[in-house]
């Protein structure tokens, strides 16, 4: 019997060796494969279950927070303000996609990116890096005022402080409610996601910084800047009063909106948004000067906004104005922000900000500060310049002209009581008789604390009053609230 007991030991020993082999396979050989298995939601649950700080506005309105939930994810992300701030907060979705501040400030919100792979001895004896709260520069009152003024029209509003780049409002319509995307039931999340993506109005698109439009006449500020900066004599030139401009080497004419007749010096041209004058000015400037000025204002480069994937605004390269590609007619159209020019609402707000801030564009940002759970500030955003768009002298001259536009030009409806406003309207032709209504403004002119860009998409009517009629009141409302007037 002793011998058979020994043999039983051999059998059991063999069985245990099978276990050792299998557990080695599970924990060593197949570990990586199984960790990346599509049905493995552990990482996801870790991110979902990990403490995640709140996102709040500069004036203390909570935009996103994590609340305890009973399921395996332990925490449910909620967005108390829903769709209104979705262009800023973005969403944190089960499908592991995220956008907006949730994506941009993920590290701050979770307190770090320590993954299972990079642990140190210190981490073993330390609590998981604790979550942090993120305070934005966005002001709930400005955001609400901008959204209310825009109403149910497709478009976007950007408001920022030109002196430091603080973004005060980032409105986009239509928008979406991020709450269903943060749900924990895959089917519901998928349904909401598919619904948003199927919507032709693209509610998930933060138009304010990720969609480009032809900037139309608002771009004339840049063209004027090019003249002041690079071909000073054009600023003194008296442009002929015309109804339409005969474009060189074509049979086409470039008319003024609404068939008006206009001309004069640069200030006169800007006040009434004279197409024929600025088109001729573009031809006079030439591709080199116009392109260089557009680039100086930030066209062709992604603005360093601290939200994911801000779109590039575009201005044609110099070469395209030579020869037969765009040529001189192209210069004419580009100088008035049509054809091959496109800009995000953020970019146009930065144009206004450059004028308002002595020619310097501060880095646009939504992050104000990061605080730990006890409320102590762990990180504060330090403003810095993005680029110098133009000289202080040119900025001062442009500022005076834009104040004139608001005082007695196309942007009178942007006026607000208690502060001098500078502005420039725009009407960018789209299809048929519809046009995008634009305005860029700043106030108070003496020491601007807010710069605004508004676009309302596809409004009926082509007259250059469109921007002034539709977009200007929105900008006025936003500036009023931003300045506390």
């Amino acid at each position, binding site marked *: *019997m*002793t011998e*058979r*007991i*020994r043999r*039983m*030991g051999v059998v*059991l*020993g063999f*069985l*245990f060796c*099978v*276990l*050792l082999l*299998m*557990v*080695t396979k*599970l*924990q*060593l050989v*197949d*570990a*990586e*494969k*199984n*960790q990346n*298995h599509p*049905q*493995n939601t*552990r990482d996801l*649950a*870790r991110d979902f*279950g990990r403490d995640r700080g709140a996102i709040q506005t500069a004036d203390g309105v909570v935009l996103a927070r994590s609340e305890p939930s009973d399921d*395996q994810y332990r925490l449910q992300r909620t967005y108390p303000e829903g769709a209104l701030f979705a262009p800023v907060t973005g969403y944190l979705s089960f499908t592991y996609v995220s956008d907006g501040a949730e994506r941009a400030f993920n590290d701050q919100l979770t307190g770090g990116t320590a993954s*299972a792979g990079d*642990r140190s001895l210190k981490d*073993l*004896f*330390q*609590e998981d890096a604790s979550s942090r709260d993120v305070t934005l520069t966005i002001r709930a009152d400005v955001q609400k005022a901008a959204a209310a003024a825009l109403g149910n029209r497709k478009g976007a509003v950007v408001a920022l402080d030109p002196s430091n780049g603080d973004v005060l409002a980032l409105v986009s319509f239509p928008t979406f409610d991020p709450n269903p995307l943060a749900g924990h039931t895959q089917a519901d999340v998928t349904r909401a996601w598919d619904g948003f993506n199927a919507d032709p109005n693209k509610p998930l698109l933060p138009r304010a910084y990720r969609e480009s439009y032809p900037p139309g006449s608002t771009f004339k500020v840049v063209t004027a800047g090019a003249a002041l900066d690079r071909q000073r004599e054009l600023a003194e030139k008296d442009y002929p009063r015309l109804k339409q401009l005969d474009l060189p080497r074509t049979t086409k004419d470039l008319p003024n909106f609404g068939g008006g007749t206009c001309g004069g010096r640069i200030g006169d041209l800007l006040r009434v948004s004279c197409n024929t004058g600025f088109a001729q000015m573009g031809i006079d400037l030439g591709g080199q000067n116009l392109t260089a000025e557009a680039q100086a204002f930030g066209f062709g480069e992604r603005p360093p906004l601290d939200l994911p994937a801000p779109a590039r605004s575009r201005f044609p390269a110099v070469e395209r104005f030579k020869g037969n590609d765009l040529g001189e007619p192209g210069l004419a159209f580009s100088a008035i922000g049509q054809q091959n020019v496109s800009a995000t609402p953020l970019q146009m707000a930065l144009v206004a900000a450059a004028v308002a801030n002595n020619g310097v564009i501060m880095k646009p940002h939504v992050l104000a500060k990061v605080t730990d759970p006890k409320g102590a500030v762990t990180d504060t955003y330090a403003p810095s310049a993005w680029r110098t768009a133009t000289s202080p002298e040119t900025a001062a001259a442009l500022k005076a002209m834009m104040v004139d536009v608001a005082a007695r030009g196309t942007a009178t409806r942007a006026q607000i009581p208690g502060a001098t406003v500078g502005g420039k309207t725009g009407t960018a032709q789209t299809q048929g008789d519809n046009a995008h209504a634009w305005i860029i403004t700043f106030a108070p002119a003496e020491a601007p604390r807010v710069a605004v860009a508004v676009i309302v998409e596809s409004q009926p009517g082509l007259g250059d009053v469109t921007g002034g009629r539709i977009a200007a009141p929105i900008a006025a409302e936003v500036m009023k609230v931003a300045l506390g007037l």
Partner: protein
Amino acid sequence: MNPTPRSTELALLLVAALVTVGAYALAGLGETASLPANLLPFLFTVLGLFAVAHIVVRRFAPNADPTILPIVGLLNGLGYAVIARLDADLAGLQSTWTALAVIAFAATLIMVKRAIDLERYRYLVALAGIGLLLLPLAPGIGTTKNGARLWVELGPFSFQPGELAKLALAIFFASYLVERRELLAPGGLPTHALAARARAMGPLLAAWALSLVVMIAERDLGSSTLFFALFVGMLWMAAGGVGWPLLGAGMFAAGSLFAVSVFSHVKARIDTWIDPWSDAAGAGFQLVQATFAFAAGGTVGVGLAKGRPDRIPAATTDLIFAAIGEELGLVGSAAVIAAFMLLVAAGLRIAMRAHRPFDQLLAAGLTLILGVQSFLIIGGVTRVLPLTGITLPFVSYGGSSLVANWILVAILLRISATPAPTTRDIAARPAQQVAA
């Protein structure tokens, strides 16, 4: 001078205590970055329980094997640390059960002076074993949990009588088989003995039927497999030959095939074992989550209280091995397997060194219980076998399991401490055994 068995045991127990308290402290650090507030009381409780067990062994079985108690203490302590990290309420109960189990261990060592004494009550023990096994089927007190009818509830207490039944059956089998082993041994027998051999086969059929009843009526695949393996294993160790294991395996296979074709829950277990992924959110959930837990653990684990074993179903009981694999990694899971290997080796060594055939077979049978049970559940969690609901001895949460397994090792220690029979012992043996 060689150290005495008891001083070896004391030193090893201190190591086990160190690991237990260390694991408990690390789990506290992992969870809150601070040492648990009750670390000192915990340390004294662990040391106290180990001291009680050690002193009882020192006093009542001074020559007992010195490795068993430290291994059991280590497994029990590590299991407790993992349970405490998963569920504070269960940890409170588990500590009470551990204390009761140590008391049962001590009582067994004190009361059972010789294992052979148990033989006298073998039919009583067999009846008790069968009774315990069938008790969950009794209306009124039997309770079904997670689809298996293994539980008996009496007022506020609930327990799994099957855990104690396996001890009773091992004792009965040892006694019965030692007595009949010549009859059951392979090889030619005189004609007049063939009928006796046929009669001796009766209990084999009874064990088979019993395990089928457990599988069918109580829906407990793990226990039924364990009982059958225990019987066939002990039969083979007693009688030898290849016939019994082959016959046993054939009968088990037949029973299994029958069960698979007739009972949906058995078939579901097999299907899930073969492919847990096709229904990863349903039937395969336990296995898939266990697989992900092992993957998350990797080589060195994510650290105690650093993982998400709360995502593993039944992480404190049947699937606790996956929780260990996640938080302690391959190092930890292999260590647990190694501990069971050492435990089995120590148990079989005791069996080989025992002086009486009954002691030999009982020790081997009891060790077989520990070996097969840990293999069944670890193999189930790691997909070596279909997953059957059964506890990992000493590690899983469960009062009945703890008490029964601590009694089991008490008997093992008693056997290891039993000296060779003297002439007086042989004279005192029951007449029939002397005759056989």
